[in-house]
């Protein structure tokens, strides 16, 4: 089982769906950020799984996983500072209270 591609892909699909659920359901911006991290990790798992079972050059998938981790770091970096800014401004980090886009 640990040697089949499908099990990894299934795992990453579950992780991805859980991430999407959190993204849509949570109000707290930090929790949303955490959900995003789950989604990114599912992508990483996919990269490495395909790297192992489908690619000849075993460096390709790993390189992309490195990029994902680096970009996740950047994303969290910016995301957190934005959340802090919002918190200072409004005293709350609930996403449904930031409703300026209302049409």
């Amino acid at each position, binding site marked *: 089982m640990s040697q089949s591609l499908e099990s990894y892909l299934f795992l990453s699909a579950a992780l991805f769906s859980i991430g999407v659920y959190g993204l*849509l359901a949570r109000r707290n911006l930090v929790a949303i950020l955490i959900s995003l991290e789950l989604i990114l990790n599912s992508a990483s798992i996919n990269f490495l799984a395909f790297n192992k079972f489908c690619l000849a050059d075993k460096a390709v998938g790993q390189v992309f996983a490195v990029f994902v981790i680096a970009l996740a770091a950047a994303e969290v970096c910016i995301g957190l500072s934005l959340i802090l800014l919002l918190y200072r401004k409004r005293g709350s980090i609930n996403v449904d209270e930031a409703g300026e886009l209302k049409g």
Partner: protein
Amino acid sequence: MSLADLVFIGIAAVTILGALMAVSFKNVFYNALSLILCLFGVACLFIYLNSEFLAIMEVIIYIGAIAVAIIFAIMLSRPMARETEKLEAAKISRSFVIAAFLFAGLCLTLHRTVWHAASPEGDYSMRMIGKALLGWGILPFEAVSLVLLVAIIGALLLAAGKERSS
């Protein structure tokens, strides 16, 4: 069923459990802690995928930097750590349905697709990763480093600029 498989199932269960807790606890502090659990499981999976280097990176960067940064942010905004979120039933159910259908769709796709397998044997070493990063991957590598730089400067600006004005 081999020992490796048993351990794999355990790790997968921990990962899923961590992920579920990371989105379902109402207190965001618990969420962050659950995330660490989940990320740890993912790092173990990476080892199963022969990528020891990335497993280490996962632990160092994700758990050591990102998760800690999140916890810092939570602690910095004092009430956030104690606050429990009021969840709306409509929103929850809507998100659940969408996520469930998404999962079903993904599983169906997995099931239907024919994968072209290749031998799992090969050179997974850090040397090859380094060569790839500085060989054909030099352009995305530089781009990512630029993004990181911009992100750091931007984060500093966002965080510091406000304090100066206040």
